[in-house]
């Protein structure tokens, strides 16, 4: 297993909520990444973001592992939630908060913090 493969897997499996996006929360480079981040923030999720833009290999490796071709990609406790459309849809129906409570505990909002992980 190469390093990037391990690093991507560690983020997916190790972070409570992982958002692979274009850019960072400070400088978002894509509207869909913003839609996903906004929905996660409204749900009070503790988001760990990974910018996939610095190296095309990150996106390649990520899609190989997830089977999802586009960015952003959102994972909760290692489970692929989807992209921006599904995240917004789940947020609107209240399903996203229910999923977060189920995966992280009902007090998940308390630990609310944002983290940025760099893979290169």
């Amino acid at each position, binding site marked *: 297993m190469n390093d990037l493969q391990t690093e991507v897997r560690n983020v997916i499996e190790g972070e409570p909520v992982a958002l692979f996006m274009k850019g960072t929360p400070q400088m978002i480079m894509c509207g869909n990444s913003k839609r996903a981040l906004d929905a996660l923030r409204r749900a009070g999720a503790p988001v760990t973001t990974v910018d996939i833009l610095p190296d095309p290999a990150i996106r390649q490796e990520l899609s190989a592992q997830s089977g999802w071709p586009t960015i952003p990609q959102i994972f909760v406790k290692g489970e692929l939630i*989807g992209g921006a459309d*599904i995240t917004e849809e789940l947020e609107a129906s209240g399903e996203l908060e229910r999923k977060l409570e189920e995966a992280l505990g009902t007090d998940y909002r308390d630990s609310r913090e944002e983290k940025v992980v760099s893979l290169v």
Partner: protein
Amino acid sequence: MTLLESLLRAAFPDASVVEVVDRTGGGDHFHVTVVSGQFAGLSLVDQHKLVYAALAEPLADGTIHELRITTRVEGP
């Protein structure tokens, strides 16, 4: 019928709704809606993966720059 619409029609022959909206008029930002019985029992992730699979070629060759997807299970 546009390329995207015909690919979706071919992948979801039972679909009651196949809608393709060119969001910006530029021919590369699309919102597709599919209502099909094939989605029954599937998670949203798996439903969207079927749509991605149907559109794999235009996604890979850059015809689609950005894609929004709405899927619904065909009602009884």
